[in-house]
């Protein structure tokens, strides 16, 4: 376990910024009230075996007791830092993203399952979408009852969606809560 270095931090922040926009500030400066320490620390990012974790400082302090090879996980795993120097968000980051999401998409109930099987979001599945989503922005996918289902990358901007044919892809799938079942071993 170690803190991220400068390049790693900027790669992770860039990716998170795509999804949460200026709320990234809240994410980084999130005070934590865990642990017995009198002064509340913050949440911070830690890298352990190419996975990036979001955890409170008090937890980090206690996790230092565990040797690196023995440490399986701490806090919330939000993604993987690849060997090539990219950052991939994983589905565990969904709660974090959903709470701070800048761009959202709501799915119709009949097409929720399709998304949870790992398919892209089609125009016909779209219930609602926040305005001024640009192509390439990160969007969080919700069910109509406001349950976060996953996240992805907008393939089309909101304006373009209006004129899209029903089979066109609106959101490119990146992660969904179905992965907890489908890819249990990998998570």
């Amino acid at each position, binding site marked *: 376990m170690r*803190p991220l270095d400068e390049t790693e931090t900027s790669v992770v922040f860039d990716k998170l910024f795509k999804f949460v926009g200026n709320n990234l500030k809240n994410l980084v400066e999130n005070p934590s009230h865990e642990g017995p320490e009198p002064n509340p620390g913050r949440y911070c990012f830690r890298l352990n075996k190419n996975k990036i974790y979001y955890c409170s400082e008090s937890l980090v302090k206690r996790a230092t007791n565990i040797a690196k090879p023995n440490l399986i996980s701490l806090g919330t795993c939000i993604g993987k830092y690849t060997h090539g120097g990219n950052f991939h968000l994983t589905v565990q980051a969904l709660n974090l993203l959903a709470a701070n999401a800048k761009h959202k998409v709501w799915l119709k109930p009949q097409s929720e399952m399709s998304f949870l099987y790992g398919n892209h979001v089609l125009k016909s599945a779209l219930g609602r979408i926040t305005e001024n989503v640009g192509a390439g922005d990160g969007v969080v996918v919700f069910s109509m009852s406001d349950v976060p289902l996953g996240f992805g990358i907008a393939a089309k901007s909101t304006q373009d*969606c209006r004129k899209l044919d029903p089979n066109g892809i609106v959101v490119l799938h990146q992660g969904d809560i179905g992965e907890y079942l489908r890819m249990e071993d990998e998570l």
Partner: protein
Amino acid sequence: MEIEGEKMFEVDLGNLMAYDSHYTIPSQQSREELVKECLQKGTELVQAIADSLFTLPSTEDVDGPLVKLPPPTTKLPREKHMPRPRPPTKWEEFAKKKGIIKRKKDKVVFDEQSETWKRRHGYDHANDEEAIPIIEAKPTDDPDEDPFAKRRQDKKGRVDKQEKNRLQNLKNAAKFGDLPSHVQLAATSLPITGTQAVQKKVTKDELGNVAGIASTATASGGKFDKKLPGEKPPKHKGKFRKFPPVAPPAANGKVTGPSEREQTEKILNKILSKNNHDILNVNKAVTVHNVKKEKNRRSDKSKSSATDKKLKPQKKPFKKGGSAKKGNPKAQ
């Protein structure tokens, strides 16, 4: 050869050497007497050389008279043995067995292609198959095969085979300790001395780097060493990356370098400031304008499609909780 007084010395001026071939060292003498006698004899011989030197015709120089020595007459034995005969190569053995005699060939041969005389080997040589631009196809040819690629491949194969044979012959010769002198100098860089890997030539830069690393192998890490001209400082000081401490330091703890908080703050500000032109969202303004225009058009037509209504962007930002339905009554 010169006769000096009653004694006869043989003087070889070319080697500046004189000796008495008739002299025998008397046995049964004490060591001191022997040394004395040797010195005396030596003096006589040197005197003989000097005498004969001064009889030679001389030219005057600033430093004194100069003479030209005659060629030496005494033959000295050579230091190294005569070169041994090279063991025959595979081909030479074969040729001897078959009775093939090496014959001189002309340097130039007639080139059928250009109908001129050209060199047999080397650049622009005669009957070069590489220079044939068109290869006639035969019915037996494989259509998937590129004949030009095959030709190149074959040529390369032949060259490689010859190189392999050459090295094998050299390896044999090395076993007899009889490499040609020009190969001997570079023998370590050829795969013939048992070590299969070809040794890489060390470049100047690499040498400099190694010297830099080696210079740190002192108690002070090379700090007080005198640097040679052209010597580089070691490339890596050992530390590649610096990380802030894993756990946040205690309130009274010392921290060297930028703390994690400072680092994240810096990067966060950089990202936020890079994207802070969101205050005036041009895209949003365009969308609002477009929506208004479309509404006007639709009201003109007094007809609208159902699907477009569903995708109408919200006026209010979405709120969590029970207001979901209220927020967009048109959906569903």
